């Protein structure tokens, strides 16, 4: 595998893993929770480091998952105590992230944990940290991590597909039927957290948020079937990753930033030209119907 291929592969795996949780979050109108979680996992990472004094992968994962779920719990608590949902997200997000930033700068300055890195990521360094596992050599650590998370996301999606579907569409009926609505909510928060932590070391929090929200929102404009929404969203996410890489290479700029830009570009295309929802297409269609009315 070449250097370029590793970067594209990593970004593609990240984008598919993110788009899976993203579809569920967007349909539940909870997209901005991913913004909070993808930042507050920093607190989980630095706490795990302070407790274990190592950058061991598993401890990092557990720390991040706990931080992500706590973020969701706190947002829920504030919200049910009467704070507006968006304000609750903003407060918990900035508060926990800020604590993470302070802890990093106080205790973890010398280790491989820094704030700028957590926001922007550094895809260009990925191919150089490799781990041999299962007899396979020379695979970057980031690829292992994100592959494991992707497999977990796919398995959970398949196992709980109809439960996720019903509890997203009609939580009241889901609860009345005995579907564990609360468990599914926190399961999704856990999935979002491990996806964010596995992704953000490689690509940074901004690309994580972009990949979680933009491709599902684009797919939402292109299909009216849930199954297809997952597929389209994954395809759009991968296209954004690949095209973003090459544009970044041409313009000699930040790779993750360019990939995030591409997710926005694809969204704009769908927003204007989607056969069912596109603004431009609707205008054209209206003009035609007006003409035919005039003739009649």
């Amino acid at each position, binding site marked *: 595998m070449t250097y370029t291929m590793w970067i594209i592969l990593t970004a593609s795996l990240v984008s598919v893993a993110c788009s899976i949780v993203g579809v569920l979050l967007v*349909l539940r109108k909870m997209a901005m929770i991913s913004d909070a979680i993808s930042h507050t996992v920093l607190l989980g990472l630095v706490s795990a480091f302070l407790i274990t004094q190592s950058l061991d992968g598993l401890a990092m994962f557990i720390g991040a998952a706990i931080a992500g779920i706590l973020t969701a719990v706190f947002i829920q608590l504030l919200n049910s105590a009467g704070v507006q949902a968006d304000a609750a997200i903003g407060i918990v997000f900035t508060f926990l992230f800020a604590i993470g930033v302070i802890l990093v700068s106080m205790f973890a300055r010398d280790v491989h944990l820094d704030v700028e890195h957590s926001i922007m990521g550094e895809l260009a360094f990925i191919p150089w940290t490799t781990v041999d596992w299962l007899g396979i050599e020379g695979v970057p650590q980031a690829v292992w991590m994100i592959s494991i998370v992707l497999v977990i996301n796919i398995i959970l999606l398949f196992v709980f*597909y*109809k439960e996720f*579907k019903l509890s997203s569409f*009609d939580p009241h*009926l889901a609860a*009345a039927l*005995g*579907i564990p609505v609360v468990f599914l909510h926190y399961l999704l928060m856990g999935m979002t957290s491990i996806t964010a932590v596995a992704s953000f070391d490689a690509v940074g929090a901004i690309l994580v948020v972009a990949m979680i929200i933009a491709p599902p929102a684009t797919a939402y404009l292109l299909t*009216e079937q849930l199954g297809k929404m997952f597929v389209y969203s994954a395809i759009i996410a991968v296209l954004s990753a690949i095209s973003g890489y090459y544009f970044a290479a041409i313009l000699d700029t930040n790779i993750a930033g360019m990939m995030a830009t591409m997710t926005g570009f694809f969204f704009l295309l769908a927003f204007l030209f989607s056969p069912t929802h596109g603004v431009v297409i609707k205008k054209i269609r209206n003009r035609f119907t007006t003409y035919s009315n005039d003739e009649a």
Partner: protein
Amino acid sequence: MNPVSTNNITVAYHRKPVIQNVSFEAPEGKLIGIVGPNGAGKSTLIKSILGLVPKASGNISIYGKPYKKQRQIVGYVPQRGSVDWDFPTNALDVVLMGKYGQIGLFRRPNKKDKQEALECLAQVGMEAFANRQISQLSGGQQQRVFLARALAQNASVYFMDEPFVGVDAATEKAIIQLLTDLKSKGKTVLVVHHDLQTVKDYFDWVMLLNIRKIAFGPTEDVFTQDNLQKTYGGRLAFLDQESNGVNPLA
């Protein structure tokens, strides 16, 4: 044994009672209307029976057992406005959701489930719309899809939250036909309703509710001028609060 029996249920929101000490025994095989002014707690009453809102106190049983053990025999039609009709799915899929409880964890709906869901759509005259995107259905058609979903639950007791709101005449007829069919099969249906004009035509029994239960019984006995005055007149709520030691002017 009664299909639905409640003993002194109270539900409070921020310490203020939404429903208070409501006890009733619903008879089997009847169409039962629940009426009362806005904010009387009609929806809250059925949600508390279904365990969707926490109770401050009281007991509920469905055919003598707690609701949690009887989910399979209870059908629920939430208010149409409570879900997002832009959700990417079609009418048949929504009806199939009614069967998710019976299908159970880790399993997918099979051909037989789909066939049964189609039959439920046919019972509300919607079989031609099975593959139609739900956002492209009219309000009345969406309501009929919700009813078909409840039929797919194949329950003995049904709870319906304002099924007649905002529907066209054809849908209203379809709902009445459906209620009559359910009754003839011995099912019990509790319907939250707010159109007083139609109560006598639609329902065998009626509950008049305004935070407390004002009256409950056969429609001809209970649906009286006097009881309506008690339910809808502002004076009673005022006196009621005073008798609880709460001064409304404070």
